[in-house]
Every structure is written in structure tokens, then in C-alpha cells.
């Protein structure tokens, strides 16, 4: 149940936990943002380490991240009732502990409820509100969604108000369903070109808590007007605005379509970011249901460039670049930007693409799951995962393969 805001009280300004880290430690942020439990491991002697060292403390060899077992045993548990740090003091009491990892190192961790010395726990690598990787320990199988410390590091839609920017996206309807199921307080769904029929209008209306609103992300006026109405009431924004128009450089109307794709995907994001970004960043600590996350649903072809999707890929590449700027702005309020990289979706525009394609429900579930885990990057679909793996392994080979139309 969402409690209404007391208009007499000042909105709490966002504070962040300590954010200083070594340069090497940012490798952990990438792993945490993707939901991987990778720890620093010596490339010479194979010892795991914590915290992130510059070199192996045992043999001075290089250290790289490696998937690690998540098991650990609690050595000691403490509750900080009056922490010295302002961020934690506002959220006290705060539980911390010392654990012995099964893979070797000892670590100071954020501790889940009811963990006592001697307990077996599972470790997670999480991003805190400063966007830095931290260790969180909780009993295996324990439901964590009600834990305030876990809540602080994730973006649970429960009792939060969510804006989905484009009702015409293939994932919009299943996303609204999934958010309703997850307990969202309100689900606002933007309808571009409201004067055109929306075949799913009745289906949206049947979902509890859903409201359809006119929203054209290619219009300054439309975006600004909506922000004037609801900019201070959106805790999670999911940007689904897209314009899939496959075609290479020589395709008919390639320039016009590339421009339109850029207007929707890249400049649309910019327009949203300019008005909703500051509003959300300013409400990052507005109670326990304050603004928490912004999700950009992007195409993997913004990162892996396919000649047959030249304009579309360029628009998504531009949106990814804008996303970096938005992430920096949102971070000041502790609001997370989650990028969802999807492969070709099950819609008319990717009709001729080979399977497996990404269905709307799969994309929706991945988004909600990513929010619940507090992730920064989610990859959806076998093709997207495969392309990114191949890109990391051998970029030139991927370039040549895509030039030949081999996905």
C-alpha cells in the first residue's frame, strides 16, 4: 500500500553511500551490474581475493575476474545503530558482518536478516546506490524483497508508479501485466500518435492500475506536457519507444527512415531525459518508494552493427551514448539506469529474421527481473547473447559475418 506524501515535509535530498573505489575495482561494478558473481582471481596461482587488489598478494601476478562459488560462513554480525556516514545513518539500523568465503577470502558484507555467526549464507555482488559493487550476504533461499537493505539496492516495482513510454512496443502489454503482478502502484503507458488505432487498448484497460496517456517522444511539447503532469510521480521509467526499420544504406527511403528512427530512439530518449531525468534524480531518496530506476529498452544492434540494419543500429548506438550521459545525471540521485539489450523481437518488422527471436513476454519478464535484482545491464535473447559474446571474443569476425548476412 502506497502512503501518500505529507506535503508539509521537505522532500529528503538524495545522499549516497561512499563511492570511492580503485580503478581496478570498477571491473566488479560491471559484473554486479550484469548479475554475475565474479571475484578477483590470480591468473598465476589461482587464489581468489577480496577486496579487489592491484596484483595478487601471494605471488604478485595479474588479477582478473572469474566466476566464483557464492557460499560463505558468517564469522561475526553487527548492527550499526548510529552510523557515522550520513547515508547509512538515515537508514539505520544497518546490519553488516564479516564472512569467510568458501573460495578463500574474508570480507565485510552487508548482511541479510537473521544471520548469526556460524550461519551458512549465499553471497551476491550488488550495486549500491552509489553504483558501486558491494557484497551482500543472506541465507540461501531467503525471500529478500521485504528487507530494507536489499530494497535499497534493488528497484522493486511494488508500490511504485511506473511509466512505460510506448504502448505500441511488442513488450508493452506483457510488461504492464508483469508490473501489475509485481504490485506496481500505477502503470502509466504512453500512446504515440494517439489518433491512430491502438489494437491493444482494451487489453491495457483490463489490467488493474493501467492508464493510457498520449505521449509522442518525437515532440518536445508532448514530452514536456506529460512531465509537467506526472514528472514528480514516476519512480520507474521504462523507455520502450522504438522504430524498427530494417534496411541498409541503399534501401528505399533509407535517409528518411534513419532520421525517423533517430528522432524516436535517440532524440526521443534525450527529450525524456531532459525533463524526467532531473525530476527522478531529485526524488531518489523520497521515502522508501522514491524514484529508483530508468530502463532503456535498446537493440543489441546498437552495439553490434549489422549492415542490413544501418539506420536502426545507428539510432540505437546513439541512444546508448545518450544513455551514458543520462546514467551520470541519474547517479547523482542514486537512481539506476538499466540498459536492456534485446535481439530481434517477435513483430512484423523482424518477420524475416531467423529464430530464435524475443517475444514480448520474455522481454517484459527480463525487465522486471532485472529491476528486482538491481541490475544495470540485461541481455535478452539467445541471438543477442551470442552476438555480444562473439563481439567480445573476435570483433572483426562478427563484422565480416554480419556483412554476409550471417547472424
Amino acid at each position: 500500500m502506497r502512503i501518500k506524501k505529507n506535503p508539509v515535509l521537505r522532500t529528503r535530498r538524495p545522499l549516497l553511500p561512499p563511492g570511492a573505489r580503485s580503478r581496478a575495482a570498477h571491473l566488479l561494478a560491471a559484473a554486479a551490474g550484469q548479475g554475475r558473481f565474479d571475484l578477483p582471481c590470480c591468473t598465476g596461482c589461482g587464489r581468489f581475493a577480496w577486496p579487489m587488489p592491484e596484483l595478487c598478494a601471494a605471488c604478485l601476478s595479474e588479477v582478473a575476474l572469474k566466476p566464483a562459488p557464492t557460499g560463505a560462513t558468517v564469522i561475526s554480525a553487527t548492527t550499526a545503530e548510529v552510523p557515522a556516514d550520513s547515508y547509512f545513518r538515515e537508514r539505520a539500523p544497518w546490519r553488516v558482518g564479516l564472512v569467510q568465503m568458501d573460495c578463500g577470502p574474508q570480507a565485510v558484507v552487508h548482511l541479510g536478516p537473521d544471520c548469526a555467526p556460524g550461519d551458512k549464507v549465499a553471497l551476491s555482488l550488488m550495486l549500491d546506490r552509489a553504483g558501486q559493487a558491494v557484497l551482500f550476504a543472506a541465507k540461501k533461499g531467503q525471500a529478500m524483497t521485504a528487507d530494507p537493505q536489499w530494497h535499497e539496492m534493488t528497484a522493486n516495482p511494488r508500490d511504485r508508479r511506473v511509466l512505460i513510454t510506448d504502448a505500441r512496443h511488442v513488450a508493452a502489454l506483457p510488461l504492464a501485466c508483469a508490473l501489475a503482478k509485481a504490485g506496481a502502484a500505477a502503470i502509466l503507458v504512453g500512446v504515440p500518435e494517439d489518433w491512430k488505432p491502438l489494437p491493444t487498448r482494451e487489453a491495457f484497460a483490463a489490467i488493474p492500475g493501467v492508464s493510457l496517456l498520449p505521449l509522442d517522444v518525437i515532440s518536445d511539447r508532448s514530452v514536456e506536457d506529460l512531465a509537467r503532469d506526472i514528472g514528480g510521480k514516476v519512480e520507474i521509467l521504462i523507455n520502450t519507444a522504438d522504430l524498427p526499420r530494417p534496411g541498409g544504406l541503399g534501401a528505399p527511403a533509407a535517409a528518411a527512415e534513419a532520421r525517423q528512427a533517430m528522432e524516436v530512439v535517440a532524440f526521443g530518449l534525450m527529450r525524456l531525459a531532459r525533463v524526467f531525468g532531473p525530476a527522478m534524480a531529485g526524488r531518489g531518496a523520497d521515502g522508501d518508494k522514491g524514484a529508483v530506476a530508468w530502463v532503456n529498452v535498446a537493440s543489441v544492434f546498437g552495439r553490434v552493427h549489422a549492415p542490413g540494419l544501418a539506420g536502426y543500429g545507428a539510432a540505437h548506438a546513439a541512444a546508448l551514448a545518450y544513455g551514458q550521459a543520462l546514467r551520470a545525471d541519474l547517479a547523482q540521485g542514486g537512481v539506476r539506469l538499466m540498459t536492456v539489450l534485446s535481439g530481434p523481437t517477435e513483430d512484423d518488422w523482424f518477420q524475416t529474421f531467423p529464430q530464435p527471436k524475443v517475444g514480448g513476454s520474455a522481454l517484459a519478464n527480463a525487465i522486471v527481473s532485472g529491476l528486482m535484482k538491481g541490475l544495470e545491464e540485461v541481455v535478452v535473447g539467445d541471438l543477442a547473447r551470442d552476438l555480444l559474446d562473439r563481439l567480445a571474443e573476435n570483433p572483426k569476425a562478427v563484422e565480416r559475418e554480419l556483412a554476409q548476412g550471417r547472424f
Partner: protein
Amino acid sequence: MVLETLTAALATGAVRVVDLTQTLTEDFPTIVLPPEFGASAPVRIERISRYDAAGPAWYWNNLSFGEHTGTHFDAPAHWFTGRDIPRGTVDTLPPEHMVAPAVVIDCSAASATDDDHLLTRVALEAWEAEHGRIPAGAWVLMRSDWSQRRGAAYANLRADGAHTPGPDAEAMRWLVHDRGILGFGTETIGTDAGQGGDFTPPYPAHHYLHGAGRYGLQCLTNLHLVPPTGAVLLAAPLKVHEGSGSPLRVLALVPGA
């Protein structure tokens, strides 16, 4: 002498000016084609400055739009049948065509009950019986009161396309070839009926008008303020290089009360 009389009539209200133009807004519906065809860019108005840090003393915007958005003019080159017409683009069309008499055919009652109402030759001949022969070189404006609709009701798109009133094929052939009109204007998004793509020939207003070097006007408004005969239309499209059409301000000079 004639112009002095005109300006005097304008000053006294003996001649009134009626604006037949819809406001150019970002959410005004545009023609919808199957999306695999190129689509017209909608109207976009982006602020450069408004007495702010980007321009402390001045207000101005960047505008962008397709040639066929808002209240707009169709030149002969817009359709394949008019591709070989001399001076068939908006930058070259004769300026004397930009000021011409206009007649108004009132189809508002039928359009109120039938979204697909068609203006027929029979109806035109009945109109002539009452108001006299449609003059050669005149604009023929089809009043449907469609301009009083907004948004989805204005576009009126269904699964089988748009449903909006317009002329049938024989009416257009007759107006162009037997009456020698200058152009045809509507209150809807196109000069053709919403289902005009299924007529023979497809899109007969475009086909006959532009094939004979005549013009189209669409998304007009305020036709209820224009009398059936006796009005003069001022319709001057932007002088776009090799343009197939353009948004424009359409004014009617009508007799005062």
C-alpha cells in the same frame, strides 16, 4: 480602381476574410500509408530560444514537416499522372492560379451520417441546378464539416483503412474534364475519400486533378462560413524547390453580411 474598391470593401466589411486553415500542430493527423512505404515527417516545432539563456531577448523555433502536412496544397507533380505537366511543382506554378473563384458543395448532412459519403456527379448536377454552372478555373470545395472532428475521429482509421468522405471517380472526371475546374478542396486528410484506393482509377481525385495540371487542397476548415458561390480563394503554397506541395495559409474573400 478595382483594387481600391476591394480594399474599401475590406475596410467596411462588405468583403470579409475567412481563414480556411487548420493550425499547424504537432499532433495533427497526417496521411497513413502502409509503413513499408516512406512516411511523411509530422509537424515538429522545436524551440531555439524564448527570452532565455539561449536567446535572452528573442523567441523563435525550428520547424520541420513533410510537404503534405496540416492544411496543404497538392501540386500536379505530386501524382504520377501529373509528372510531365509543365510548371507542375509549387515553385513554378503560375501565380495567377493562386487567386481564384471558389464554390462550396455542402455535403455536411450526408457526411454526418455516413463516414464514407461520396460526392457524385448526380449531386454536382443537382447543385448546378440550384446555384448555376460551376465556372471553369474555379476551386470546388467539398464541405463535410469533418474539420470539426479531432484526433482519432478525424483520421477515422479502421483495420481496412481510413473512412472519410470524398468524391467518387466519375465526379472527379466530370469536374476536371467537363467543367475545367482549377482544383478540388476537402476538409479531410486527402482530396480523395478514405477508401479511394479501391476506386477505379485508384485515388481518382489525385489521378484526374493532377493528370490535367490541376490542384488539390486538404485539411481545410471553416467551409461553413463560405457561401456556395461568390467567394475568392487565396491559396499560395510555399515556393519550395521542385516541391510537390506544401502547408499553406488558405484565405477566402466572401461577401460581408
